[in-house]
């Protein structure tokens, strides 16, 4: 249709072959998606607090996000934000991992036992998952 602003039209379609930068005042898809992810998390946290459900807020947010996607809402922006976040996922674990220095006393006291438990239980988890899946997977 002639009446549709071609620039706005392409932005709404998610860029196409030559993605145009969003015009001033139009939020980039990834930014809109991040707002949606934070909105889902916030709603999840509120839901967990309000109802006393035993589940973490972000996990309820995950279910809400699937609900949005299943309803066909904002799939483009959500995909854009999720791709950015999940591409650099392992970086996000660094601050927590460095937190090991605050528990050096527990590590020193139980270090050998902890190392044994962590190694063995991880290997048991890996082996059980792999063997069960191998047996059940349809060709």
């Amino acid at each position, binding site marked *: 249709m002639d009446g549709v602003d071609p620039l706005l039209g392409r932005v709404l379609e998610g860029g196409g072959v030559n993605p145009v930068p969003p015009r001033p005042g139009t939020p980039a898809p990834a930014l809109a998606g991040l707002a949606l992810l934070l909105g889902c998390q916030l709603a999840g946290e509120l839901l967990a607090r309000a109802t006393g459900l035993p589940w973490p807020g*972000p996990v309820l947010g995950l279910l809400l996000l699937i609900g949005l996607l299943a309803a066909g809402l904002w799939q483009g922006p959500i995909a854009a934000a999720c791709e950015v976040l999940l591409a650099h996922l392992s970086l*996000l*674990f*660094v*601050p927590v991992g460095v*937190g090991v220095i*605050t528990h050096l006393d527990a590590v020193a006291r139980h270090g050998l036992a902890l190392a044994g438990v962590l190694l063995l*239980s991880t*290997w048991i988890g890996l082996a059980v998952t792999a063997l069960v899946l191998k047996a059940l997977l349809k060709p």
Partner: protein
Amino acid sequence: MNELVELWLYLSASPLFGLAATLGVYVLAALASARLGQPPWANPVLWTVLVLAALLVASGTPYAAYFAGAQFIHFLLGPAVVALGWLLWQRRAALRRQALAFGVAALAGGAAAAGSAVLLGQAMGLPVEIVAALAPKSVTAPVAMGIAERIGGVPALAAVFAVLTGLIGAVTAPYLFDALRITSPAVRGFALGTASHGIGAARALQVHPDAGAHAGLAFALQALLAALLLPLALRWL
């Protein structure tokens, strides 16, 4: 010399230091890992954590000062957990086709990892709050913290155990799979995502796209199943 000390004191008290150090060391570790051909032992998260922890301990910088900056990265874990919903949604066709296999494998693997951690922890005489922090260790750190909080474990310890479990899986799983003669990239990826969450999934993605896709699916599925089932299961114990 004195000026240098003053500069260090200023920098270590500002959030800029924690943020810049985390990003900087991680980028260098990722570059080094790529240059070495991404062997399992050159895991960027492992080396970034080791370098930063050594740096903080050697310089006497408290973790709280580091975290003042690093929290900006840490905060993104919440939205990242929500983003796992997109991974599940994308793979809904495969999930529906192999629902029984994926579901049973995720449940059996998750239960085996959590159960063996709790039983081994008790057998080794670890204190109760440490054992409770071990239970959710196969789940991604932010979800593990949430679960530990609800079952009486120390959240910070649960997060550290989760990261260590991820690293153990990412570094040692290839050898274990070879020993068990498990060759299918899909099965190897799914097991890594189930037992070693995001860090295992990141490793699987480096190795093979099929392994990466199944690891992402398994990791998201495990976060969801464990977060929904572990608090209920532990209520009965």
